[in-house]
Structure formats: C-alpha cells, structure tokens
C-alpha cells in the first residue's frame, strides 16, 4: 500500500500558493509545480489547503472498559475524518493505563486500526488516585514508548506527588500533563462559577480552582527544571499565568480545546447536558483571551479533549449527566471558524498549533513535520470554502455528544493521509 504513488495536484500548501505534492513509498517525494503524474493516483486539490496531519494531545478513546462509548477503532476513524494522523489516548480507561501492559494494549489496538497513530498517555499515579506514582519508567520503556503522563479527569493535587512526578519523568524526557482542578474548590461543581451559575442555582467551578493549580505547577516545574503541560486551559487568568511562566523561560506548555474557543456558559441556561464539560464552558471574556493566547503562541496547541459518552449519559437532568464532548470530527472546523476566519491565525499557524507543536510536546516522531521532500506523508487536505451543518448522525465516532448539532461550521476534511495511505478520501473513510 505504501509503495503506491499519489499526486496531490494544485493544493495550497499551508494555505500558500498552489503546488503539486507527490507522495511515494509513504513519504513526500517531491513538492513543486506541474509534477509528473505518471503512475500516480491523482487527487485534484484545486482550492484546497494542504496541512501536515493533525496531532491531538488529548483524546479519550475509552478502550479498554467503556467500549459502549468509543473503541480505539471507532475513535481513530473519527480522528481520520477530522484530519488527524496521531492521537494521544488518555489514561482514564478501565483498567487505568497505569502499567506497561495497558499502554501496550492500547498502542497495539491503534496499530491494528490503521486509521491513525495512537500514542498512549500513561497515568501519573496508580489508578489516578493521586497517592502513589505509577510505574512511569516501565511505560516509557514499553513498546508504547510513553512520554506524556496525565491523571486527566483528576488533578494531581498533592504538591509532593506532582513535584516527584515532574522530577522523575526527566529521566526519559517525559512531560506531566496536568488537569488543573483544585478538588476542594470544585466539590460538586456543575458549571463555571459566575453570574450564570448564581442564577441557575448550579454549583460553581471557579476559575481560581484552575489558576491556583497552574500557578503552583509552573513554579514547581521551574523549581525542579522539568517540563509541565497544562491540559485544556480555560480561563483568562490561566493565560496570564502561562504567559508569565513562559516569559521566565520555563518549560511550560498549554493546550486549549475547540469548545473553549467558541462556547460560553450562557449555553448552560438551556440545562442541556450536551454543554456539560470539565473544565466548564467559561465566559465571553475568557473565550476572547483564549483565542488571543492561541494566536500569540502563549497557548501552544489545540487539543480536542474528545470525550465520548453514550446517549443515556446525556439524555437526563444536568446534575446526573456525564461531563465531556466529542470533538475530533469538528475540531478543525471550529478552529477555522474561531481563528482563521477571524484573521487571528493563518493556515501556517494552524499547522503549528494543531500539528507541529503538539507533536513536539508529545515527542512524537514522524508527525507535525514540514510538507517537504523526504518527510513522512502524514497530511490532511481540507476545503476551507465548504459550509455545512453539523449532523451527529454522520459521525464516525460511536458517540454523538456534540455541542454543535445543527450549527453551521466552515471547512471540511477532504482527504487524510497516514504515511501516504489515504485513510479518508472525498470526505469519507476509505
């Protein structure tokens, strides 16, 4: 399969002038004008934009344990539809990915799926319980070669455990990805704490519960000279702390989700649990700050926090509902809508924030590379002129819990190439 040749004709590489890109043997063979199509399958890409395949630092594939909401296969199919060629599978599965055995299982399922590379994330602590370090070294040395460690869904709130984890992962160039949520300040929390939560009578999740943990962790990372990554940063105050930490030259990186770039807590007035997510949807001022921070690079990357849930876990009253939204299949459209169409980011910037930087943070070889001869042919071809209404029935994901149902969004992935092999062609899975 990877021996075949494909000629992508007339694509705007990183949004620039139209060029031909010849793919051969899983790699980019040539980039230029009017390349020879002999022996190659031709993909006409007039008006389409070519980017390096997207990389997600934050995906919940749910397998093992919650295959009713997603499996590695359905999740990677959704990823391919969304233009992703690599996803980091979060550790909060059943059993938790806190041993070499579980991360290797997930890694192997990803290889078998063939739609997208799956890089498992290892848990920081045993059972995500926050008490005892998991065998981080064993996971790093396993076939899965784990480099990102996270208790995502739970905060590593014990300062000593966090400090030790940050120190320990230096031995294998790992990074701790923190779900920043001070647990005591968020007991029973249902939504952003602010004017809307006061009116709706829903227990608030205050911004300070995120910001205080981020402040502590950037100081800890600086103190021990390690890397820390902030998951799904959601408030304007968090942006200020990360900006300050970066100005000090500390090894701090951060991600933002597509939904935090677009949606606000005003939507909770519907009490529709499709808008229930953790961290919660914040205010308009936060959305503006997050977009600016992504544009200026304070926030390094977009990560989906793709969180599939079965219908019954959302078809209920707010407090009983699960937190989370699916995001793989709509991320690029939301980023185009919020960042590109607003003039905040060009396609080169999108390639940086959705491919190059997340791959670098995750130490993922072969992804997030330039569109240049000799590089692995992990590519996505998209149509930025497309306008479509989100219909969850069309999703490749096993779950349908999208907050964008019925919303018109721009852009559509036409083709995704994983090492030269088309996982998506003409907008459909191959």
């Amino acid at each position, binding site marked *: 399969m990877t021996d075949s040749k494909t000629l992508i004709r007339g694509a705007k590489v990183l949004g620039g002038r139209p060029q031909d890109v010849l793919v051969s043997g899983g790699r980019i063979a040539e980039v230029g004008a009017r390349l020879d199509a002999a022996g190659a399958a031709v993909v006409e890409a007039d008006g389409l934009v070519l980017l390096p395949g997207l990389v997600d630092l934050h995906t919940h594939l749910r397998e093992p344990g919650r295959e009713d909401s997603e499996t590695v296969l359905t999740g990677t199919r959704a990823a391919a539809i969304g233009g992703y060629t690599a996803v980091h599978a979060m550790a909060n599965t059943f059993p938790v990915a806190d041993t070499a055995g579980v991360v290797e299982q997930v890694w192997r399922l990803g290889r078998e799926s063939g739609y997208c590379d799956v890089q498992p994330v290892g848990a920081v602590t045993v059972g995500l319980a926050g008490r005892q370090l998991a065998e981080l070294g064993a996971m790093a040395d396993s076939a899965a070669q784990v480099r990102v460690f996270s208790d995502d869904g739970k905060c590593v709130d014990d300062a000593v455990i966090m400090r030790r984890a940050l120190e320990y992962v230096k031995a294998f160039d790992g990074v701790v990805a923190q779900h920043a949520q001070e647990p005591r300040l968020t007991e029973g929390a249902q939504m952003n704490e602010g004017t809307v939560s006061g009116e709706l*009578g829903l227990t*608030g999740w205050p911004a300070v519960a995120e910001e205080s943990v981020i402040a502590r962790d950037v100081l800890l990372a600086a103190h021990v000279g390690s890397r820390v990554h902030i998951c799904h940063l959601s408030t304007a105050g968090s942006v200020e702390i990360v900006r300050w930490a970066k100005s000090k030259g500390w090894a701090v990186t951060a991600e933002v989700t597509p939904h935090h770039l677009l949606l606000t807590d005003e939507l909770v007035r519907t009490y529709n649990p499709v808008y229930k997510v953790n961290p919660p949807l914040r205010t308009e001022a936060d959305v503006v700050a997050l977009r600016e921070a992504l544009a200026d690079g304070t926030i390094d990357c977009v990560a989906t926090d793709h969180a599939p849930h079965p219908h019954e876990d959302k*078809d*209920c009253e707010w*407090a009983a509902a699960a937190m989370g939204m699916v995001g793989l299949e709509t991320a690029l459209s939301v980023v185009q809508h919020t960042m590109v169409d607003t003039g905040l980011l060009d396609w080169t910037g999108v390639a940086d924030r959705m491919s190059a930087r997340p791959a670098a943070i995750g130490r993922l070889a072969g992804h997030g590379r330039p569109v240049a001869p000799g590089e692995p042919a992990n590519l996505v071809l998209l149509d930025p002129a497309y306008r479509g209404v989100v219909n969850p029935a069309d999703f490749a994901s096993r779950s349908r819990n999208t907050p964008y149902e019925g919303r018109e969004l721009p852009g559509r992935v036409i083709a995704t190439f994983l090492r030269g092999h088309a996982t998506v062609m003409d907008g459909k899975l191959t």
Partner: protein
Amino acid sequence: MKRHLISAADLTRDDALLVLDTAEEMARVADRPIKKLPTLRGRTVVNLFFEDSTRTRISFEAAAKRLSADVINFSAKGSSVSKGESLKDTALTLEAMGADAVVVRHYSSGAPHRLATSGWINASVVNAGDGTHEHPTQALLDAFTMRRHLSGPGRDLSGRRITVVGDVLHSRVARSNVLLLTTLGAQVTLVAPPTLLPIGVEHWPCEVSYDLDAVLAKSDAVMMLRVQRERMNAAFFPTEREYARRYGLDGIRMAALPEHAIVMHPGPMNRGMEITAEVADSPRCTAVEQVANGVSTRMAVLYLMLGGSEPALSAGTDTRTEVRNGAPADDAPRTDAALTPDTHAPRTQESK
C-alpha cells in the same frame, strides 16, 4: 401564561397579577362548606417528588383535589426511581398514564426545565422546587401574602420594600422571590453573610446587604429563609449561635420594623436559628397564613395552566350541582363562571 411554570421569570407582570387575582377567588372557595370546584374534572395531575417535601406535595395535592382533578402522587423513594430509573423513563411512564400536568420537585437544578423542553412529555410542567434554582409557586404565594397585607387585591407591590434574609446561595425561594417581586414592582434587599450569597449577585435586580439591623427599619416585609445547621460544617459560618446573633430575627430586631411590617417564613422553621420562637409565634409572623395561601395560589396556577384557555364543557353540569347544593351563584369564582358559559355549551354535552 406559558404552558409550563419553571421559573418566576416566566411570568410577566400581567401573568403574575392574573395568578394572584385568580388565587383570591380560589381562596373564597376555601370558605365555602364544599371546598371544591369542578374545573379540572377528568384531568390528571401528577405530583412527581424526587425529594422529600411533605408540605409542598400536600399543598399541590389539596389544590388539585379542590379543582376536582385526579391526583397521582409519585414519590421517588421506594419507587422505580430508587432502582435507577432515569428521569426520562419516569416521564415517559407518566405520559403513558395520561398526565395533563406534572408537578415536579427535584434535587437537581434544571430538572423541571429538562422535563418541559426535552420532548419526553406533552404535559404541562410545574416546578415545585428544583435544587438550588427556583420555586416559583412559593414566590407566588409569598407575593399573594404580601399583597394581602401591604397593597390589596388587583394591585402589584410597587414601592414595597422586601428584605430576604439568610442562605440565599442555596435558596430556590430567594431566587424566585427576587424575580417575581421585582416583576411586581417591589424593591428587594438580600441580607446574608457574604459566604451565603452567590457569585454574581451584584447583577441581580436587587440590593444586597451584610447588615440586617441596617435594613430592618426600611422593610415592609422581612422574609427569613431556612438555614440548614449543617452549613456550618462547610465553613459558611462559624457556629449556629454566631449565625443567630448576626442574622437571626428575634424580638428586639422585630421591634425595629415599621409597625405595619410582616415577618414571613417559607417553612419549615429552625426556631432558635434564623427565627426565635417569640417572633415565630407573634401575630406579625405569616408563616401559617402562607401555607393556606399556598393552596389557593397553586389552585390558581393549575387552573390557569390546565383549564384557563379552554371551555370546560363538562363543568356546566357541576356548576348547577353546586347551585343545587346551595352555593350562591355570585359566590362562584369569576374564573369558574367564565369557564362555564352554559349558553355556549351544546346541550348534548351537558349530560356527559
């Protein structure tokens, strides 16, 4: 009136006055020998209670029964709900049984809103208290009580100064009252320790004070909210005694109120906590009257939501039954009379 009553914000000034005026007429029924109207005969009202609340449930039950509705009480405890049935499946079950109105009390804020808007049922939904969100019929009965003491039938509460004291953060009563009383023209002041006020309360259409003594002399009514003693375990206040000293209403503080001012409490009272026995048992305290007014107000709500816009054909027969029973015709509630235009009711329907 909207089809559902979820929030006090669903009521315009005219809607609210219509409910209160209707409730006045319903209250007259309570003075009759036979405390029953035929208006909702054949209609089914389900009291769906996911949270223990004997007072509110029996108030709604009495209201529905006085309107001759069939009443089904569904308590989540000991039912299929305690075995894990979802709100949706419970709703579908009630729908299948032909509920015309569902009166719902739920521990989760927004649950009645979900029932009304998610397409699970067609019945009208009345919020009988959801989590720490709203309790609109409580606000209506409170307004009804205030109006009787402070303004009068047919009038709103313009210029009246109402002070609401206590655990505003966790109070659905406070939220609904702020909305409804403001709609009716009153000026509301919330008084609480800062820990028991929600973030963003400065955007609410009311004043906020941390000092009860500073506002008493300017209050036409003081509403004391129930404060759960357990709150001090989460550090909302240091001790019960300190709470009572700073925010409790005792005889001395009551004496600082203007002479005409009333003391209200939605119940159940924590005597010695937010209110002393001296105040609770004083003639200025309307707590018991509020309970009676609750039935009239809920009758008005059920009537307006279920019967108010349609001619109740079968009601004609019953009106005459009542006349035969000796009730003077001019004593019949206006609403009932308006509903039973004998001249419009086809004869063939009368025998049904």
